[in-house]
Structures are given as structure tokens and as C-alpha cells.
């Protein structure tokens, strides 16, 4: 710990150092930000992470591939489904297994539902970060319905563990299609409410537009992905560039803005909710018949070599890099988690703005701390 203390002490004397976190209402978890202030203006931010570092990469080295999905659930718990999908896709790609369309379509629907509930929670917490507590309850009210759909089919609400290498754990619940359709119908009516209470509010506009602008060059250099990068105009949607599962069969727009400020990062997520609903609507009536899982070998061993699989989670690009030595457990697993990379840009964005803007900027990057720490 001496190192950290030393860094804090060498800051200029004029600056007022506030320790935000690890327990703080708006860091959304155990993120600690050492903020140097001059008056209300942010001079420097030092993020300290690792409070829930569980060593998932190390643990992966001693477990088998089907077991890894239970760890990836716990990284970005709001994109649990996409995280699992990355492992499954990688294993299936390495073993060259042909996956039936039914599995692909169900995976895509589940991914989009996951994205939808993640963006709902983003909307809810972002409103709360800016002081509008009513948003939180509106967001959670609608998110609850998706979690109920998850629970009915997968048995889990947040930690779903529904994918497994070779397909799905179990078939969808008979009610699944009906409930998803009901939800889409319901949420299409509720989404304008979100705009009424937050997007159109003049205080909200004042608080967010022009705050923490991220240029395209910086977004590329900092490796930002996901809605945060698309708000700056970086086309980085893996679903478009390297379509996996059933994304090559559906039509949806990649939401792109060019301003890159907090407001457009918010709008990118807001519009993605609509795109997700479009995607689900295209697929939900056309789930093909077939098996829900392919028979895999009892012990999955990947051929020796290096594999890389990208998926688009709700927060950006999750890269899964696996080095296999031919054994039943991987030699090295690296998760390129979007939150970890996006954290790097926080200091760059918030420098020179006020404390309240720091909260808005951090909120608009939509951090999930377990994904940073892994």
C-alpha cells in the first residue's frame, strides 16, 4: 500500500484530495477514485481498482471449459449472457462444431434481452446519478419484467448460466415467446415515458450536453468500445463487423453519433434499446425447430493453439483470448473486458470539469466494477 499513499502525498499542496469510494453511492460498486480538486474543479483522477479482484483468469487455468461459463457470469453481471456466449462461441469455433439455427436464434434473443435490461439499469442509475431518483424506479419496474422472463426459462435472474458449449442448458419455457412479445408491446409504450422524464428535461440537457467530450481519435487511442465509442462516431459494433449467432440474419442499425459528449453516450444507449427491441421482434416469431443442444464430447479438449473470440456486450467489446495446450483446461485465458478498458479514459474526460460532471461522466461510461477487477 505504500506506493499508493506516496502518489497521493506528492500532489500539489493547492489541491484538495477527496477519496471517492470504495463505498460511495455513485461509483456503482467498489471503485475508488482519488480525486484532486481545486475548488469544485477536478484536476486529476486516480482510479484504484481491485477491491473484488477474484483472479478469474487464474481460476480458469485450473477448470474445464464448461465450468468457465459460471465464472464469466460473474464478471459483467449485467451482460452475463453475452459473456457466456463468448466462451461457447470460442469452444465451438475451435472444435468446428456446427450449431443449429434454433440455438443461434435463442442465443441472439437472450443476448438482446440482456442488453435491454442492462440499458434499462443504465438509464435508471444514470438518472439517479444526476439526482432524479424517480428514474431509478421507472427503470427497475421495467427491468423486473425481463428478469422474470429470464427466471422462467433459465432459473436465474441475473446470473443466468444459460449457454453452454454446444448449445443451451435447457430448452426455452413454453411461455417464453408469449411473454417476450408481451414485454416488447409493453415496453414500446413505456419507452416514451423515459424520454419525458429525463431526455427532454432542460436541467438534464444542461447537465449532460457538452460535458466530457470524447473525440474519435481519443476513443480509438484509448480503445473505447460499445455505446460510449459509438457516441463518438467509432463504428465498433461486433454484431455488425463480425456477426456471430444469428446477427447476420437480422436487420438493425448501429447507433452512431459524432459529438461524443455525455448526452450522446446516454442517447446511444437509449436508441440501442429500440434497436434491441427491433432485433427481438424479427426473431421471436421465427424460432426454428430443432435440438436445443448439440452432443459434445464428455470432456472438451481444445486443439493446441490460440483462439480469440469477440462478442458485443452491453458495454462494449468483450474479447476472449485463450491459449490451449491441448488439455481439458486452458493454458491461459485473458478477458479483454470493456469496462476495464473504458476506465482508462475517465481521467482524460473528467479533467477540468466539476465534481458533479465527474459523476455524470462516470455514469455515462456505465461501469460495472466486477468486470474491471475480474
Amino acid at each position, binding site marked *: *500500500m*505504500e*506506493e*499508493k499513499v506516496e*502518489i497521493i502525498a506528492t500532489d500539489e499542496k493547492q489541491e484538495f484530495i477527496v477519496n471517492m469510494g470504495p463505498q460511495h453511492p455513485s461509483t456503482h460498486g467498489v471503485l475508488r477514485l482519488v480525486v484532486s480538486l481545486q475548488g469544485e474543479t477536478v484536476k486529476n483522477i486516480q482510479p484504484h*481498482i*481491485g477491491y473484488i*479482484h477474484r*483472479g478469474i*483468469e*487464474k481460476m480458469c487455468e*485450473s477448470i474445464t471449459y464448461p465450468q468457465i461459463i459460471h465464472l464469466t457470469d460473474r464478471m459483467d453481471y449485467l451482460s452475463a449472457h453475452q459473456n457466456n456466449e463468448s466462451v461457447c462461441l470460442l469452444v465451438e469455433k475451435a472444435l468446428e462444431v456446427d450449431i443449429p439455427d434454433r440455438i443461434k436464434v435463442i442465443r441472439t434473443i437472450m443476448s438482446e434481452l440482456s442488453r435491454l435490461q442492462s440499458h434499462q439499469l443504465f438509464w435508471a442509475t444514470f438518472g439517479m446519478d444526476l439526482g432524479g431518483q424517480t428514474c431509478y424506479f421507472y427503470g427497475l419496474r421495467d427491468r423486473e419484467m425481463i428478469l422474470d422472463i429470464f427466471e422462467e426459462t433459465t432459473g436465474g435472474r441475473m446470473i443466468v448460466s444459460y449457454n453452454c458449449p454446444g448449445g443451451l442448458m435447457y430448452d426455452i419455457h413454453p411461455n417464453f415467446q408469449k411473454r417476450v412479445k408481451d414485454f416488447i408491446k409493453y415496453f414500446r409504450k413505456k419507452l416514451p415515458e423515459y424520454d419525458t422524464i429525463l431526455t427532454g428535461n432542460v436541467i438534464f440537457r444542461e447537465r449532460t450536453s457538452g460535458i466530457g467530450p470524447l473525440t474519435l481519435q*481519443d476513443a*480509438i*487511442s*484509448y*480503445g473505447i*468500445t460499445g455505446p460510449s465509442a459509438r457516441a463518438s462516431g*467509432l*463504428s*465498433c459494433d461486433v454484431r455488425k*463487423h463480425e456477426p456471430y449467432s444469428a446477427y447476420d440474419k437480422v436487420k438493425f442499425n448501429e447507433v452512431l453519433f459524432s459529438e461524443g459528449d455525455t448526452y450522446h453516450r446516454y442517447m446511444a444507449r437509449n436508441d440501442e434499446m429500440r434497436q434491441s427491441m427491433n432485433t427481438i421482434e424479427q426473431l421471436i416469431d421465427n424460432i426454428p425447430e430443432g435440438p436445443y443442444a448439440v452432443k459434445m464430447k464428455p470432456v472438451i479438449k481444445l486443439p493446441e*493453439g*490460440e*483462439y*480469440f473470440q*469477440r462478442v458485443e456486450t452491453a458495454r462494449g*467489446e468483450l*474479447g476472449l*483470448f485463450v*491459449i490451449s495446450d491441448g488439455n481439458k483446461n486452458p493454458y*491461459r485465458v*485473458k478477458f*479483454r473486458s470493456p469496462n*476495464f*478498458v473504458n*476506465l*482508462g*479514459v475517465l481521467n*482524460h474526460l473528467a479533467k477540468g470539469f466539476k465534481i458533479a460532471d465527474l459523476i455524470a461522466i462516470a455514469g455515462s461510461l456505465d461501469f460495472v466494477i466486477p468486470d474491471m*477487477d475480474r
Partner: protein
Amino acid sequence: MDNKQLEDFIKSIDQDLEVRIGKQFTEVIVPPAKLYSLARQLRENEEAQFDFMFNLSGVDYGHDLGVVYHLRSTVHNHSIVLKTRTSDRENPQIDSLAGIWETANLHEREVYDLLGIRFTNHPDLRRLFLDSSWGFPLRKDYVDDINIVTK
């Protein structure tokens, strides 16, 4: 450029580099001494323009310690993998690429934290997740009798 063209392109930069086409990407094995200059050229060359580093992972190969860089160009939409390794396990040193890609900053701190590879010229090389008294857990010779369950 596709993988074959990339191979030729790398060869045109430096004849001595070992290039092979892997399952997905063109992989370049580059010695630590040449890493920074090659990375700089890949970033700045008009034809290559690898401006987006989407992954950086440290690997313990048992005998050597290595770093794998995944690069992509947002302009030309092609990808390449750089691999470098050092056999010095006591004081492994590799040039930092944080001056070329800002995202390398956090990634290299993570690799330093978990594998103990020192990145020279890194602006702010500190432990990231763990205490300074901790070992380097991602190394294969890391011993932890209590927390790591081995079969």
C-alpha cells in the same frame, strides 16, 4: 489487407521477423528490442494504420514470459497479432507501448501486476489489483496452497 498481404507487408518492413499465419490472425514474433519501432511503424504507416489496440495479454510460457498484442485498424479493418517474449524471469523488461496507444497504459499495469513484467518508459507503472507485497499470481510457478485448488 488480408493475412497474406500483411505477411508480405511485415516482411517488407523487416526481413528478419518471423511471421506466420495463425487460425485467425497474422502473427508476428518480434524480439523485445524491435518491438517499439515495429509498433510505431504499424501505427503510423498509411497502408497499415493499426490504430486500435483491442487486447494486450501477458502470458507465462513456462520458460519465457511473453506479451501478446492484438491490433486492429479502424480504417482498413484488418488485424494483426504481435508476440514478444523475454527469457529473463527475474527482471523481465519490455518496452511500453503506452506512448503509441493510450489504452496500453492500463493493460500494461495489469500485466505488471499479475505477471511482473516491467514495462520501460511506462508513465505510471504501479500495481493495479494487488498489494505490492503480493507475488505475481499469473506466473505458472506461483504457489498458493490455500486458495488455489489443484486436482
